[in-house]
C-alpha cells in the first residue's frame, strides 16, 4: 500500500516560493488503480516523482508497505525502488541503442543481475512485442514504444506502477490497449497510480483524485 501523507513541494523563485504540489493525502491499496487528475502544471508529475522516491518533498511522508521512502539513503532507496516500484513515462525513455528485448531487460543492468531473459520474452509476448524483439526504439510505433516501456516497468513484478501521462502520445486505440494492460496488472494484485490531465482516461481508474490549479495556491513567503 502506498501512502502520501500531507506531502508538499515548493520551488524557490526569487524571494518567493512557487507551490508545485499543494498538500496532498493519497492512498493506493494493493490491487487498486488510482488516477490523479489535474490541469497542466498542477503538480501531477511532481506528485508521481515524490511517490516514487525520485524527488524529496518539502514536508510530509511517503510510505510504501510501511517503508518511509525519504528516510532512506540514496542507494537504499535505489535498491528498494528496483524491487518495488515501476515507472512508465509519457516520453517512454527507452534506451535508443538497445533492442526491444534489451530495453525490457534494462532493469537487470540497473539492479546488477542478469537472469531475466525468460521473463523478458514472456512480457514481450504478453504485450504483443514478440515480433519486435530485435528492433530498436526508432523502428517502433508510439504504441509499441509505450508497451515496451510498460513491459520494462513490470520486469521485476513491482508492488506499484507509477504512470505519468502514458497515453499522452497515443491514439485512442493504443491508449485503450495500454489501459487494458494496466487493468490486467491490477487484477494480478499490483497497484497503479496514473497521473493524467485527460478526464476520460482518468475515469477508467477505480478511483480518481483531483489536484487543484496551483496558481490559486501560490503564497508569498
Amino acid at each position, binding site marked *: 500500500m502506498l501512502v502520501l501523507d500531507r506531502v508538499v513541494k515548493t520551488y524557490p523563485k526569487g524571494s518567493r516560493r512557487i507551490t508545485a504540489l499543494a498538500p496532498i493525502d493519497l492512498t493506493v491499496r494493493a490491487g487498486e488503480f488510482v488516477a490523479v487528475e489535474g490541469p497542466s502544471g498542477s503538480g501531477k508529475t511532481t506528485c508521481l516523482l515524490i511517490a516514487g522516491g525520485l524527488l524529496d518533498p518539502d514536508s510530509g511522508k511517503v510510505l510504501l508497505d510501511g517503508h518511509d521512502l525519504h528516510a532512506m539513503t540514496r*542507494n537504499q532507496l*535505489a*535498491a528498494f525502488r528496483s524491487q518495488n516500484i515501476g515507472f512508465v513515462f509519457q516520453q517512454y525513455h527507452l534506451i535508443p541503442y538497445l533492442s526491444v528485448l534489451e530495453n525490457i531487460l*534494462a532493469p537487470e*543492468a*540497473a*539492479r546488477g543481475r542478469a537472469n*531475466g531473459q525468460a521473463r523478458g520474452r514472456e512480457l514481450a509476448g504478453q504485450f504483443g512485442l514478440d515480433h519486435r524483439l530485435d528492433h530498436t526504439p526508432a523502428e517502433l510505433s508510439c504504441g509499441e514504444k509505450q508497451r515496451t516501456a510498460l513491459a*520494462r516497468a513490470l520486469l521485476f513484478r513491482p508492488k506499484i506502477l507509477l504512470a505519468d501521462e502514458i497515453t499522452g502520445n497515443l491514439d485512442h486505440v493504443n491508449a485503450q490497449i495500454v489501459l487494458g494492460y494496466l487493468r490486467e496488472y491490477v487484477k494480478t494484485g499490483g497497484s497503479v497510480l496514473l497521473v493524467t490531465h485527460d478526464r476520460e482516461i482518468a475515469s477508467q481508474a477505480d478511483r480518481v483524485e483531483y489536484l487543484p490549479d496551483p496558481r490559486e495556491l501560490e503564497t508569498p513567503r
Partner: protein
Amino acid sequence: MSVWRLVIKEIVRRKTNFVSGLVAVTLAAAVLAGSMTILRLHDLRTQRILARKEQETRQRMAVLEDDYRKIMKNLGFNLLILPGNQKLSDFYADDAVSAYIPDTYATRLAEAKIVTIRHLLPSLQEKVLWPERKRTIILIGTRGEVPSMFRDAREPILVAVKKGHAVVGHELAESLGLRAGDRITLFGRTFTVGQCNEERGSKDDISIWIDLSEAQGILGKPGRINAILALKCHCAGNELANVRRDVASVLPGVQVIEQGSKVLTRAEARDRASKEAAEALAGEVGNRRQLRDELERFSSILAPLALLASALWVGLVFYTNVRERRGEIGILRALGARTRTILRLFLTKALLMGCAGGLAGYVLGTSIGLARQGEIGISFLDPRLFLLTFCTAVVLSLAASWAPAYYAAQQEPAEVLREE
C-alpha cells in the same frame, strides 16, 4: 542484460565518441612508447659505438706498441753498460769510451735472470784515423744481439755484421762515393760494403761497423769490449736504480747510464697516445650523453604534455557523453541503478578505451621508434615498456573519465526526467 553489454552496445552506437577518446589515449601512449623506444635505441647505439671505439683504441695501441719497437731499433740504445773505470765526463765530452771490459760480460748478463734487461748488444768502439783514406772515423765492432735462454725467441732487433763485411755511415759513404758491394781496405784488411746507412745526424754518419772479433783484431783489444748496449729495457726513468742494482749483482764494476731522452720519449709518446685515445673515448661518451640528455629533456616535456592534452580531451569526450546520456542515466536511476552502477557504466567504457589505447599506442609508438633503428636489431616487445605504456594509458583514461562519471552518478533523476 549486464552493464558490460550495455557498455558495448553504447560504444557501438556512439562510435565517434569512443574513437575520439581512443585516438587521444593512443596518441599519448604512442608518444610515451615512442620516446622511450628512441631513448632505448640511443642507449644501445651508444653502447655499441663505445665498444667499437674501445676495440679500435686497443688495436691502435697494439699497432703503436709495435711501431715503437721498430722505432726504438732505429733510435739506438736505451741503456749503456760501461766499464766502471770509464770517466763519464770524458765519455760525454768525447762521445767515446776509453776503458774496457771482457766481452764475456755480455754473455753473463744474457744468462742472468734479469727481467729488466733485454736485447744486449756488446760493442767495441774507438775513434781512429782511417789510414787508407786519411779520415777520422768511429770504428765499431759488434756481434749483434746476445741470445738469452730465459726469454722468448723473438727476432733480434739488430742483425750482426758478417765477417769480411762493413756497414758505412752516411757521411762517409757520401763523401767517399761508397755503395753496397764496393770493397774497401781498412787497416790493411779488405771488407765488402754490405750497407750504407741513411743519414742519422749523429756520429753514426762517420762510423763503420764491422764484426766484433775483426774490430778487436784491428784495435788490438782481443776479448775486450767497451760497452754493452741494452735495447728496449723494461724500465722507465724512475726504475733505473733497480736496473743498476740488478746489473751490479751480475757484473760488479760496471756502470749503467740511461739514454734518457729516448726512453722517456718513448714512454711519453705512449702515455700521450694512450691519453689521447682515452680523451677521444671520453669525448664520444660526453657527446652521446649530451645527445641523450637533450632527447630525455625533450621527452620529459613532450610526454607529460601529450598525457595532459590527452587527459583533457578524454575528460571532454566523457563529459559530452554524460550530457548526451542524461535521459538514459535518469531512467536507469528510476529503474533502481545505484551510484556505483552509473560509475561502472562510464568507468568500464574508460577501461576499454585505456586498454585499447594502450595496446594501439604501444604498437604505434614502438613502430615509429624502431623505424630509425638502423643496424640495431632490438625486440619489438619490451615487456617493461609495454607494461608501463599499457598501465599509463589505462590510468590516464580512468582518471580523466572519473570526474564526468562521478558527475553522471550524482545527477538527480527527477530533474533529468522532467527536462526530457
